[in-house]
């Protein structure tokens, strides 16, 4: 008798769970689709702010950046894709200071780990979310992040 009851119980509970599954899949069927039609929707494309696209050095309106050329990012980069070129300048009162001349960033070597951004003591660099990197030669992937004639922001 018990097995007889169990048979019918499993049959009807099985049908019920199957119907629940079909209801769920029908909900997904009618839901708005998540697919991005990429090249057509380039203008309206919304990418998460946390997406790591390219390393950039933000400049303000007077062409100032925040990089003091300390080289911590270069040390922390696991792939060696950052090279900080600087000049040592001696001021009038005899103090030596570093001035950034070329912030060299090899996009082709970068693995987007964000260690450089996290270790930067002055928040001079950050990742933006542009992702269309395709070029025809490796040389074009080596980028200079500081702009021409830019200087350190005055405190």
């Amino acid at each position, binding site marked *: 008798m018990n097995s007889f009851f169990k*048979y019918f119980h499993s*049959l009807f509970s099985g049908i019920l769970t*199957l119907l629940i*599954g*079909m209801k*769920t*899949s*029908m909900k*997904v*069927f009618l*839901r708005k*689709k*998540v*697919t991005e*039609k990429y090249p057509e929707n380039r203008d309206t494309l919304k990418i998460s702010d946390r997406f790591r696209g390219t390393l950039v050095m933000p400049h303000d309106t007077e062409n100032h950046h925040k990089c003091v050329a300390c080289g911590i990012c270069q040390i922390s980069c696991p792939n060696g894709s950052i090279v900080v070129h600087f000049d040592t300048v001696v001021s009038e009162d005899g103090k030596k200071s570093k001035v950034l001349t070329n912030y060299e960033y090899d996009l082709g070597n970068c693995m987007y780990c964000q260690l450089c951004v996290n270790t930067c003591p002055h928040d001079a660099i950050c990742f933006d979310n542009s992702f269309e990197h395709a070029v025809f030669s490796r040389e074009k992937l080596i980028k200079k992040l500081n702009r021409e004639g830019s200087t350190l922001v005055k405190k």
Partner: protein
Amino acid sequence: MFDFSIVSSWIHNLLTGVMPEFWAIFLECLAIGIGILLFYAVLAIILIYMERKVCGFFQCRIGPDRVGKFGIFQLFADVIKMLIKEIISLKNSDKFLYALAPFIVIIASILAFSTIQINKGMEIIDFNVGIVFYMAATSLGVLGILLAGWSSNSKFTMISAMRSGAQIISYELSVGLSLLTVVVFTGTLQFSEIIQSQADGWLIFKGHIPVWIAFIIYLIAGNAETNRGPFDLPEAESELTAGYHTEYSGMHFGFFYLSEYLNLFIVAAIAATVFLGGWMPLHISGLDGFNAIMDYIPGFIWFFGKAFFVVFLLMWIRWTFPRLRIDQLLKLEWKILVPIGLFNLALMILVVVFKLHF
């Protein structure tokens, strides 16, 4: 109601007017054969496109989208690719059976396909044991699958063929029982008479509970018989690469692919014919005005509407449930569907004897 037999008899009279009757019938047979094959290929393209779109929608994607508007030319590109691919012959396979197997599968599928009635008077094979012929034709396909699996000389195809054999032979019983339930109700094995008997209401309304049970059993067993849905053990991609057609290429593979989708359509079309009235419009006895309006919609639109509705049901089932294990598959058939089918047959006999139907 538009009767297609007017057109066919007009063509017959036209041909017999200019040539002896033998040649007229010969030409008609030729035209019908070419017609079936063309229709078969076009339907396969429509079904594969529909499957890919529906599958995408069930997975929150949009499916093929790049070739043409809404990706409608994707399937034509696939067909051309398949036609120009090389047919590779394997080193240690049984060459003759290896080449024969896809043809057995597709011939079985076309034979079953020709029993379908699209419109009033538009039938190819319609004789007094139509349902028995349909079941015989569909069960021929498993022979091709077994041969394909055996002659490919590969472990995967062999396992798949054995699974397919166990599955199709078991589930044929349920298909037979559910169709037999309908035969008990209508009292005929001929498809055209089954459709004609639904003129005052489709069977799914007339036969109530036993027909609903038979319809559901038929959908489950039909899905299993076409090796689709949760019953796709014979071609289980994750375990057996592609199952019995792993070693095939080019159009030989294409035949398996075509017949898989056409078997889906055949199962849906027979379900639509037997349970939902085929080309018969929606008639409610008593409402003559309503019935007259429904008669203005041509029969083939009713037929394809119903058939594609059932196809969509089968696709919904396919893309919802995970694959069964082989013991679960056989348990479902022998412990659940067959007892319920037998009980349902007895119930239907009671309904018919005591005239409890509408």
